[in-house]
């Protein structure tokens, strides 16, 4: 119940924030969220700044330069955009640290199973990809050519497709043998 409430409140907050345009209010809300984040606040703030840096710097600098050249005001826009994006990202990172997504979606057994299985499968496939990359790096004493890099990425993609096919069959058989579909049919 707690996680479902947390998820709902976060969704409402995210939508509400996009209706706020006053930089002062956005700054106040950002401070409140950071205060409420407790001891995680610095890690969350750092993560958020890294996540938004590329897009925000490009958009802010681009707008500031183009508006500055034509003699138009730009500061309010830059402050508002950066505060809003930072606030939304901080809020989302905070949620990702505190939300148990599986509990939040336990109103739907099917969705819950999809999420549990997906998270497990992501980890398995990421490990496979890391193995392939490390193997390719260890077998490439010199800088690999574009053709070799393309072939390596192609093999990684194929390995992932193979893994997906086998895992889907295996999971289906595992769930069937444990009576998952019989329980659902009743």
């Amino acid at each position, binding site marked *: 119940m707690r996680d479902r409430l947390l998820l709902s409140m976060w969704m409402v907050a995210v939508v509400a924030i996009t209706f706020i345009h006053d930089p002062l209010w956005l700054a106040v809300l950002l401070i409140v969220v950071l205060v409420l984040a407790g001891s995680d606040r610095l890690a969350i703030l750092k*993560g958020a700044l890294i996540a938004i840096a590329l897009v925000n710097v490009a*958009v802010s600098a*681009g707008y500031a330069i183009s508006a500055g050249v034509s003699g*138009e005001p730009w500061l*309010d826009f830059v402050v508002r955009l950066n505060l809003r994006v930072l*606030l939304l990202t901080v809020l989302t990172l905070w949620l990702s640290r505190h939300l148990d997504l599986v509990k939040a979606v336990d109103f739907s057994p099917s969705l819950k199973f999809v999420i549990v299985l997906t998270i497990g499968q992501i980890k398995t496939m*990421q490990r496979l990809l890391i193995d392939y990359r490390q193997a390719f790096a260890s077998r490439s004493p010199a800088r690999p050519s574009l053709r070799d890099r393309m072939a390596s990425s192609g093999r990684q*993609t194929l390995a992932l*497709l193979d893994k997906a*096919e086998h895992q889907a069959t295996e999971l289906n058989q595992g769930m069937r043998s444990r009576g998952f579909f019989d329980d659902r049919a009743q």
Partner: protein
Amino acid sequence: MHIPDGLIAPQTYLAAFAVAAPAWAWSVRRVARDFDDRMIPRLAVLTALAFVLTTVMIPLPGGTSGHLVGVGLLALAFGLWPAFLAYSLVLALSALLFGAGGITSLAINALCMGLIGAAVTLGIHRLIQPWKSSVAVVVSVWAGVVVSALLVALVLGVQPLMGRDDSGQPLFFPFGPAVTIPVLVIPHALIGLGEGLLTWLALSALDRRKVPA
């Protein structure tokens, strides 16, 4: 390519959710019908695959690289609706589990890349299937990536029209289509080519080994 939170006006993203909601409902129905009791494991694995595919590097000339979008590959291997549903779940999970990407822009990203990008790939592939298979795959995946980039550029490009403050400064993304279209479409024309080649390499290897997809 996908749009983060905070750049899009509510009138745009709420409208996108209104369009995406029936598409999601339809895709769940289609996937449930096509996969029956295999739906849950198949959808979970496809979602994980879609997630991890976005971390596969596309090598580009000059030692640089981009990231695979993966939607074209998913669409050609598994069909439109599984690709759309899996890609939408990836966007939601990225935001909720890893705090990455945007939740307000989820519907826009899912529609532009997961639905329309996949539909363009499949439609063009069907049209030019009689061509050499490698050309058909590369061209159709390239077109899907470029059309997705064009749509994202257009959505971003209309944001200056969505509101300005008293001093005339934009409330959301500030650049119009004259800026967003070349900035997004030109690099994705190159990335799309890499993605097309990579998709063809993977699918042709699958065909040769006759692993059912």
